[in-house]
């Protein structure tokens, strides 16, 4: 005991009471154990982030010289109609897909929280797409939405309708993406809502039923308010997801037709690896970082309050 106290006091004298835990442990052991993660994180996260800021102030085509450009990349960004178009596309995609997916997840969770035949199996079916990769989702969707041979147009023709140019018209490409996103994300929302629903004490509903409140009223007055933390968590996670979406769109529409479904990440990819403008691509990356960080900070602050609900 005494040698641990001596050792601990040399490390942090003010907290002698807590140092029983570091009993006979070499002081460098914790640092040694986190070294692998620390190295990986320094090389592949921390340094690249700093470096992204650095490159965003330079012009660089990957092969040639790195030349200082000051704020030129950011000035170009503000005047670049394609950047604003990509930002607008991303926002429209988020506004179209986040509420639909969340509403779907909520309805499913409420329905599948009731007793019904095959409930466990039905939950699994809705949850299944969670393990399907975005690439496989995009490819299956591209095939189903195919204008000439796709099964969806085939069904429409059979019902007497006209073929819809799903992926080849700017007007229909985004709805196609939103439908595919719904398929792959709705089970995720359902599970988070189910977890929250199951933590609501049944006592509340029993009391409300005794007071004569209709199930409809119970949903609005008990269920929805108590689901607010889960709703907020999902809102933030889904918005962040929308701003990072790449795989699904890359294989489904490639950002087209034209520029109609090019999102911010797509634009970064194009600027960096198609037109080789590393500085400009990094500047867009920095803007995306600020947006995502903003949402992440909001989520962190709120998730601390909602921890006991999830």
């Amino acid at each position, binding site marked *: 005991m005494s040698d641990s106290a001596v050792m601990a006091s040399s490390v942090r004298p003010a907290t002698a009471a807590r140092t029983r835990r570091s009993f006979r*442990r070499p002081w460098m052991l914790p640092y040694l154990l986190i070294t692998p993660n620390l190295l990986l994180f320094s090389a592949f996260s921390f340094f690249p982030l700093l470096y992204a800021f650095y490159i965003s102030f330079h012009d660089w085509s990957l092969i040639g010289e790195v030349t200082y450009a000051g704020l030129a990349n950011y000035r170009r960004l503000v005047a670049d109609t394609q950047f604003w178009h990509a930002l607008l596309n991303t926002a429209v995609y988020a506004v179209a897909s986040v509420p639909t997916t969340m509403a779907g997840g909520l309805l499913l969770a409420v*329905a599948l929280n009731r007793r019904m035949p095959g409930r466990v199996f*039905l939950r699994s079916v809705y949850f299944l*797409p969670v393990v399907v990769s975005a690439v496989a989702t995009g490819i*299956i969707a591209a095939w189903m939405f195919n204008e000439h041979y796709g*099964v969806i147009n085939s069904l429409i023709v059979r019902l007497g309708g006209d073929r819809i140019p799903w992926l080849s018209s700017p007007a229909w490409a985004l709805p196609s993406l939103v439908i595919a996103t719904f398929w792959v994300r709705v089970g995720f929302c359902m599970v988070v809502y189910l977890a929250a629903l*199951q933590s609501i004490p049944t006592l509340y509903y029993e009391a409300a039923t005794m007071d004569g409140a209709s199930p409809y009223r119970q949903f609005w007055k008990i269920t929805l308010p108590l689901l607010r933390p889960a709703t907020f968590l999902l809102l933030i996670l889904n918005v962040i997801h929308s701003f990072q979406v790449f795989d699904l769109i890359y294989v489904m529409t490639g950002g087209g037709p034209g520029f109609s479904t090019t999102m911010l990440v797509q634009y970064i990819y194009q600027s960096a690896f198609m037109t080789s403008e590393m500085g400009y691509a990094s500047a867009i990356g920095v803007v995306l*970082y600020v947006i995502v960080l903003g949402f992440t900070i909001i989520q962190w602050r709120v998730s601390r309050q909602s921890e006991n609900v999830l």
Partner: protein
Amino acid sequence: MSGVTFEAGARRPGTRRTGNVLIWIAVVLGALAMIFPLYWMFATAIRPRSEVFQPVVSLIPQVLTLENFRNVAQRHPFLTWVMNSTFIAVIAVVITVSANLLCGYVFAKFRFPGRDILFFAILGALMIPIQVILVPEFLVTSWLGLLNSPWGVILPRAAEAFGVFMVRQFMVSIPDELIEAARLDGASEMRIFLRIVLPLSKPIIAVLVIFTFMWRWNDFAWPLVVLTDQELFTLPLGLNLLRGEANPDWGGVMALALISLLPMLLIFLIFQRYLVQGIASTGLK
């Protein structure tokens, strides 16, 4: 871990029969719609080319065949892609899970100067989406000579913030007394970690292994940037290659999609409980 499973649920007496039946029918119809894309992938993969390209297609394959699988195997090194995907996912699981367990253990059970700063620095930096730092990450990987190598896919994504965070949250609940007692009995730090901490952490290890495997198996954007040689492609890159051809052979594309999905479907069937837990407790996906 919060104990959410598909088996548990609030029970309320079902009083309104017809309402319940209508809801049940709606949910079942929705489930059919959800399963249809996967059925359609399967149905396209196992029907002959002549049936695939029909302006009005029948929902049930008339002839069953493996010709799409044979075509893909003849024209593309798809077995190599399967091996590459497996190698990357398995090695990534080993590295990520071991590093995260060590790191999470340290942040849960050690007190040392700089702990909180390091914890938040690691979490904060790892929260950076790879899409944001695509360019500098690519340059670092290039400097390290890891472009066009499976290690260039594995190492940059080996440290996962969620892993560190989840392990820490889990291990905080392991009683200190247990570790202290072992230490008083003269057990080494190594022995304590391997014989006491790890066996108690089996549930969280399962969650980590499943999620890490799924993420790496399904990864697309990062491998797309790192790997250019077709012999090194993973299955998602191969899928993208086939789909990007001038006139995609959709039967072959769906056959490859089916193969890429099989391990995930297997994992889903066996470990669904852990997937639900992971998502319900931390909102990760």
